[in-house]
């Protein structure tokens, strides 16, 4: 077993384990923290796949921005076991049936697919930041610049709408 393979198995194990903990954890804050761990292991997997950019974005956007948002919402809502609405037996029953139907559809869909050939990536360094930067500043230069103006104007608007006027 090479070092890459052992790293892969390790990360995969941690990812599955922590995502199971996300579901089973009683405390929502713990659950969110396990989710962060899951994201970090997934980032590791991306880097193993030579996809640097997705890995970095995954950390910045998901583990960074979105998780902070999650934490804020949970803390602001103050979710506790008592305040959580109790599910009746009927609701559970309906849930089981709906989930079961979904499972049937999924298995049917999976059964009808043919096993695909192993995908061999032609360009190994496709996901490198270097190549992405080249495309971004060559072919997609104009959209890139327009996005910056769009963000500026959206920011002006957001500040404008949120600002409190002193009379």
């Amino acid at each position: 077993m090479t070092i890459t393979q052992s790293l892969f198995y390790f990360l995969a194990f941690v990812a599955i384990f922590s995502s199971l903990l996300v579901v089973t954890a009683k405390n929502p804050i713990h659950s969110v923290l396990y989710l962060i761990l899951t994201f970090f292991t997934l980032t590791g997997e991306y880097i193993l796949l030579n996809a640097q950019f997705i890995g970095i974005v995954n950390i910045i956007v998901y583990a960074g921005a979105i998780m902070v948002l999650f934490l804020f919402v949970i803390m602001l809502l103050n979710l506790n076991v008592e305040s959580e609405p109790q599910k009746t037996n009927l609701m559970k029953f309906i849930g089981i049936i709906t989930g079961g139907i979904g499972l049937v559809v999924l298995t049917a869909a999976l059964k009808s697919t043919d096993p695909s050939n192993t995908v061999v990536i032609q360009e190994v360094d496709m996901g490198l930041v270097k190549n992405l930067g080249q495309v971004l500043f060559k072919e997609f230069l104009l959209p890139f610049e327009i996005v910056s103006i769009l963000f500026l104007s959206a920011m002006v608007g957001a500040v404008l709408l949120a600002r409190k006027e002193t009379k």
Partner: protein
Amino acid sequence: MKNFVEIIQSSINDTLGSWIYLLPEISLAFIFILMIIADLFWAKRIKNLVAIIAVSGLFIVFLEVIDQFILIPPQGVVLFSAMIKLSTAAIWYKVLITISGLLVLLFSLRDFQLRNTEKGGSEYYSLVLVVTLGLNFMVMAQNLLMIYLSIEFVSVCSYILAAYLTGNKRSEESGMKYALFGAVASAVMLYGMSLLYGFTGTLDITNQAFYNGLASINLMSASVALLLTLAGLFFKISAFPMQVWVPDVYEGAPTPITAFLSVAPKVAGIALLITFIRAVNSGGSPSGSVFLASTENLLAALAIITMTIGNFSALWQTNVKRLMAYSAIGHSGFILMGVAAYSMTGQKAILFFLFVYALANIGAFLVIGYFSNVFHSEELEDYKGMGMKYPLVSVAMVIFLVSLTGLPPTAGFVGKFFIFSAAIEAYMLGGNVLLLIMVVFGVVNTVVSLFYYFKIPLNLYLRKAKTEISLDKGNLLFSVIIIVLALFTLFLGVFPNKLIGLINF
């Protein structure tokens, strides 16, 4: 490393070669930043500084746009690795957008509500300029990424402008509704675009691979992807089934913004729709595109439904802005009629119609703004007996409404006539019966529109004012613009060739 230097050099050369064609857009971006800085440092000392920069800046941009007619070769130029294409048709749409932007800026200068809002006006003007920038890109876009970005650009700024009168319940509601509907529409469109990219493997809609990819898959799957993408465009031009937001937003937004929203995004949306339909129909096979019949039928059916819904709902309105909102939906139907009858004459007819529609619609909203400044109401009830008190403006209003209805001797008649004849021509060539039905519906709807448009002159002239209220003086700037627009409407009605002669592409 050497490789990199070459890439950077070629990229810089490409950009240097292209930027001259983007002069109006680059100027707009600079003026926007200039306005923000000016507002920060000098706005306290010089009154109306930002508004002055906005109006003069947009005027310079207008001249630059006009200049592009000479600059580009007849077949147009493709810029920035096929992201946008600057053609003569696109320049015409840009001219129209810039003119309406200028009129709306002048309109906003003296609007009662905007002058008294607690936020002040400076950000307002900069946002109007940025919307114009987005609209310009929308007209030129020919890449799915650019299409999405420019539409989103226009939408985000429009939401803010619609909600500009903070503290006013209606305006806030209008901005919120607009944002919610817009978010759903753009999500749907983005989904459609991702499907299109998945099917074809290219973002460039003029690329032959785009058509080939779509034509080679199941027609049903291709139609779903195309329909989802078109839904976002239909939101912008307020066509059925994406028209539900129009009345509330138009009623609540500040009147200048209503005037702007009813004209400029519609112009850009139509331009983009034409680009898109053309790309889908530009099949390589001699028998024509596989989508030709289905797009024609779809657009014809949507045109019928849109104009019928718009015109019939307008019959029951008592608020003038709401009435104009439904009339705007009706007009979208008419323009879609021209798009359904797509041909070279069809595109010219659409452009002329849009010009005429823009003149009359902005004019009508200016009159609404004028009256709103005078007696602070937009209810039809309060218009009673005003015709005698403000004769010039009221006569102009009648001219605008006659033009919107499409009766001679105004320009609206000529515009509608061109659209109808383009549709008839398409029927003669293709023999699609739905196009003929569409024309019949168009005529019926014109008659229906007569009933609600003439409620306004009826109240202005033939009804007595209920009570004598003290009235403010009318605004001179408004009167001048209104009369100039009314004269233009009459002039184009009598000599339509003066404009049509210029439009050649």
